[in-house]
């Protein structure tokens, strides 16, 4: 389906908004199912969606465990003597957190169906200042860069002879914690180098920008946006009544 980037942005905002608003597994499962169905309409195969979500698996498992243990409530499902370990309420909160991440991450796949140039153009035509639109597009571009950076570090660590699979869990967490800040700082350094290199090539040298191309919202775009916005507003209203 060939829709305007702005229509897809509205779809992502609606789906992510609902995922953040809802807090029961049933509701969240429904939003996730709608997200997957939409992705399939945009020709994403199930295998591709699964591969895209795979890197989030460890984060999801971590959140599931944390929520299960630290959000107790309702019937006790697993206990260690008198101490409740997993409760129905904790499990529900944990599953909800996982579904929320899966929905937001899956909805973001729609951003990959158009170029960052179109993304900026779309926002600018909606009167968003160019610098702000550009900043958002760069931030989106840095997410995969950051993921690759983490992947590189994990590979480099292992190539120094550290067998991560054999490192005890507690030591592994300490190792990751120690590596996290240098990696984040390294990414920030690269962002600063990018800014310098852009300015050296004349970024913002003229106060007014002109554009060769314009994006045009077609009837289908307006219809899809209306359906998304109206249904989201209705669902939000229903949620609070």
């Amino acid at each position, binding site marked *: 389906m060939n829709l305007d980037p702005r229509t897809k942005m509205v779809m992502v905002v609606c789906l992510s908004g609902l995922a953040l608003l809802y807090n029961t597994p049933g509701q969240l499962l429904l939003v996730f199912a709608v997200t997957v169905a939409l992705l399939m309409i945009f020709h994403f195969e199930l295998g591709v969606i699964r591969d895209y979500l795979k890197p989030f698996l460890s984060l999801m498992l971590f959140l599931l465990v944390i929520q299960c243990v630290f959000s107790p409530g309702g019937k006790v499902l697993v206990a260690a003597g008198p101490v409740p370990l997993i409760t129905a309420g904790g499990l529900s909160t944990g599953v909800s957190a996982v579904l929320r991440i899966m929905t937001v991450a899956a909805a973001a796949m729609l951003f990959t169906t158009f170029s960052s140039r179109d993304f900026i153009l779309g926002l600018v035509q909606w009167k968003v200042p160019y610098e702000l639109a550009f900043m958002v597009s760069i931030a989106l571009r840095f997410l995969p860069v950051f993921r690759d950076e983490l992947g590189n570090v994990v590979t*480099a660590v292992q190539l120094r002879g*550290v067998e991560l699979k054999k490192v005890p869990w507690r030591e592994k967490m300490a190792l990751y914690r120690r590596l996290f800040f240098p990696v984040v700082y*390294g990414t920030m350094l690269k962002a600063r180098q990018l800014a310098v290199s852009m300015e050296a090539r004349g970024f913002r040298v003229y106060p007014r920008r002109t554009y060769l191309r314009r994006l045009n919202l077609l009837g289908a775009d307006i219809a899809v946006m209306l359906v998304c916005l109206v249904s989201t507003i209705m669902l939000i209203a229903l949620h609070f009544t």
Partner: protein
Amino acid sequence: MAFLELNRVSFAYPKRGRSALTEIDLALGRDEITAIVGPNGSGKTTLTKLMIGVLQPSGGQILLDGRPLAGYSLGEIGRRVGYVFQNPDLQLFCGTVAEEIGFGLTNRGYKPEMVEERVQFYLDYFELGSYRHVFPLHLSRGEKQRLAIAAVLANEPLFLILDEPTTGLDAYRKKLLADYLQKIARLGRGMILVSHDEPFVGRMAERVVTLKDGRIQSDSGRKGNTAHES
């Protein structure tokens, strides 16, 4: 017996039309310094990444110390083969220069005194002593290159693969590096140098493998063989 052996190894990057490497046969021992040369895009870095298990061949087999490479974990490979990436930014991940050099040893359970001794030696040898507490990515290109090499050498691997090790190094630092590599080669560490630096290759390599379009174009100076062209 060859330490690293490639038998009819091929590789193609997904979503790219042509094959990056085609039916590569190579046997590399721990008693020689081999240079892999060739134009940009000829498959040199891809070949080295296959040798350390970061990429998996789409055809053929790689043996490390007589065992299929696929049977080793990356950590096990890292203990045997030290790899210096083409871009040092990809392999520097610690908070300080000293931590970077000592990382492998610390995490393999070496005593702190021994780690410190080794760290101090490499800081002195590669003239990085004044940067001991500096964040590695704040160093210049040449300093990062020296640090990446020092961090790999500190692990004392059996075999080394250095991808463009002289990038960013001045003539004096190149000489220091060459002297050290020749010294450890004499101690029975084999190595592969991927480089466009002809004088450095000429000084160091006993054997030169030339790649072109993902195939071995020539392999000269092999022990027990005269120059060979394919």
